[in-house]
């Protein structure tokens, strides 16, 4: 039968030189292989390969619901809009006529000579007034943040301040979740290292959040963190006299990121524990016995044996947690789908992927959202490369 042709590849002697025709002959003989590859390859090509190029293409276009010409190329405009930052020193404001320094008193600006009278009368402090940031920053820039550094005041302007807010929040989220999941995962892995029934049970408990539908879990956390008095956490805090008024964990901008971080650590440390347990298994037990004979205590053997030999696992854990952290979406969407712009109170919970979703699928600025996706891709790609390089080093030793 023709299917047999697959195994009957011509002996290597005949094919010393690969001429063009022989490639086609071999390809024809291997037609069964191609046919078996096709069911995977066709959807792969249509839904992954082609979209990558389409996405790159769209990111250079003004492709949005409002644009009349969807095919209009605008070069790098989406990217410059996204990434432009400007830092300006804030200069004090002087009165144009008298040359007096101006102060911000309540809503109005007053010259220096009137400040004392105002403060005495109203009982409020006045602050130094600055030239408005709109006049300082270039066209198209809006104030993102102001900073006080060594007595000088700076204003940072961005063309898209929300994007930079999302970046900062994402970095915060990544930093805390990576460290939290790493430390907790490693600790419990070390504690549960020995094989015993109790340890096995506890491992299963810690791994549970990794296999529970994360969507469902967020809903439960939503109730635990609820601001009203029947939220579980608030209730316990009030009952134990730690706070007197319920804290609105979900509506207070200061609490948004901590809550998201706690949820992420809860959901992810068990997964890291499994990876660490696998890494610990590969460490030769004799090393510890030798160390014990030499008089090494638990800390010394951890520092000299466990930690160095776990390094490949640790790096893998860190990199995958970083990549995962940059892509956080579900928990934010579940908690803040109703908030304007998908960022929680005052954008305090806005991270990159929800921002991408907001731009692409709520405001339908597909070109702009694609540019966000590519910026994210480049960041993630950077960490993937580190992972690959580190992986090669591991194999070497």
């Amino acid at each position, binding site marked *: *039968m023709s*299917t047999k042709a*697959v195994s009957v590849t011509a002996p290597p002697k005949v094919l010393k030189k690969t001429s063009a025709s022989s490639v086609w002959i*071999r390809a024809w003989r*291997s037609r069964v292989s*191609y046919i*078996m*590859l096709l*069911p*995977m390859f066709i*959807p792969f090509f*249509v839904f*992954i*390969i082609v*979209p*990558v190029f389409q*996405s790159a293409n*769209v990111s250079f276009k003004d492709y949005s619901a409002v644009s009349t010409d969807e095919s209009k190329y605008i070069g790098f405009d989406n990217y410059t809009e996204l990434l432009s930052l400007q830092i300006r020193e804030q200069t004090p404001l002087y009165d144009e006529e008298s040359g007096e320094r101006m102060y911000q008193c309540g809503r109005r600006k007053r010259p220096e000579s009137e400040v004392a009278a105002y403060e005495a009368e109203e009982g409020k402090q006045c602050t130094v007034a600055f030239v408005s940031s709109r006049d300082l920053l270039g066209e198209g820039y809006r104030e993102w943040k102001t900073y006080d550094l060594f007595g000088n005041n700076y204003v940072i302007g961005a063309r898209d301040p929300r994007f930079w807010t999302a970046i900062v929040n994402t970095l915060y989220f990544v930093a805390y979740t990576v460290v939290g999941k790493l430390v*907790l995962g490693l600790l*419990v892995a070390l*504690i*549960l290292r020995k094989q015993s029934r109790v340890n096995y049970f*506890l491992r*299963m*408990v*810690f791994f549970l959040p990794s*296999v*529970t539908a994360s*969507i*469902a*879990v967020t*809903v*439960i*956390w939503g*109730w*635990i963190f609820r601001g009203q008095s029947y939220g579980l956490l608030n*209730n316990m805090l009030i009952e134990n006299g730690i706070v007197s008024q319920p804290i609105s964990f*979900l509506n207070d901008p200061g609490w948004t990121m901590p809550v998201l971080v706690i949820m992420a650590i*809860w959901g992810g440390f068990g997964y890291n524990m499994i*990876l660490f347990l*696998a890494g610990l298994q590969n460490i030769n037990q004799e090393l510890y016995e030798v160390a014990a004979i030499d*008089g090494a205590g*638990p800390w010394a053997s951890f520092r000299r044996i466990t930690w160095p030999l776990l390094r490949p696992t640790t790096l893998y854990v860190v990199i995958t947690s970083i*990549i995962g952290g940059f*892509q956080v979406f579900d928990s934010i*969407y*579940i908690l803040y*789908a*109703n908030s304007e712009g998908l960022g929680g109170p005052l954008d305090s919970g806005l991270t990159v992927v929800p921002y*991408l*979703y907001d731009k*692409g699928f709520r405001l339908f600025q597909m070109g702009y959202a*694609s540019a966000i*996706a590519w910026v*994210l*891709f480049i960041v*993630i*790609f950077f960490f993937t490369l580190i*992972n690959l390089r580190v*992986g090669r080093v591991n194999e070497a030793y």
Partner: protein
Amino acid sequence: MINRSRNTILLERTGLVFALFVAVFTLIPYYWMLLGAFKSVPELNRIPPTFIVEKPTLNSFYDAKGELPPDHTRGLFQIYPGTEFGFFRYLFNSVFISASITVASLMIAALAAFVLAKHKFPGRDFFFLMFIASMMIPWQVTIIPNFLNVSDFGWIDSYWALLIPALPKAFALFFLRQYMLSLPDEMLEAGRLDGASEFRIFRSLVLPLVGPALVSMGLFIWLNEWNNLVWPLIVIRSEELRTLPLIMTTMVDPFSGATKQGVAMAAALLTSIPTLILFIAFQKQFIQGIAVTSVKG
């Protein structure tokens, strides 16, 4: 000598106490969910909350007395009158979609993995490299063009939109290929000499031998699809095609009262139970899947 071992014991004890503490932290949300799902309306509204359900009831799932405040509510299976079969339909959607994607994507990935592991043909390494490279691309990059394409195909708001784009799973192919590389060539050759076609060899020789790998990968895919929120969010419009993650997005309402939380906990319980059952049944494969994929990265 004695001193050190005493220190070690102390360290182990402290470790265990710490682990138990973390276990409580891990289990609290589950316990709270169970409490909430089976509490009656007056108990849900009680402040401070009870930590043992006094009168367990199924009212958050189905309340035969219907809407009779203050003591009754409408259960999870009653609050979707617009959809035929109500919540059952959403449960079915999620099971159907996740199961179909798991089976179909595993089959096509295994077929391709077999070819890439055991056949020699022009372009093989190129295909393999392409699959591998695609694993570095985050879904955020392809989601916008995929939405536009699926719209062009006319699949928006249909099962097709949920099923077809989810089929190609490069990581499954990679994982299965690594596994298949270790299969002995002699065995396959023996099959060929017996006149079996390549498809037959795949089906009767290869598939049974890679069973454990298929189970590990299948669980992994199932879990991801069961949790998939973004894609249905984008392509599904009509109520009856919603999947469980879409239902869960309606469950966190900052202004709703405690009563509604009972229904939310019931929904969370039913959403998490299927994966938990799978986990308990296949613990080993779940954990092997993770450990093995990570070693090769």
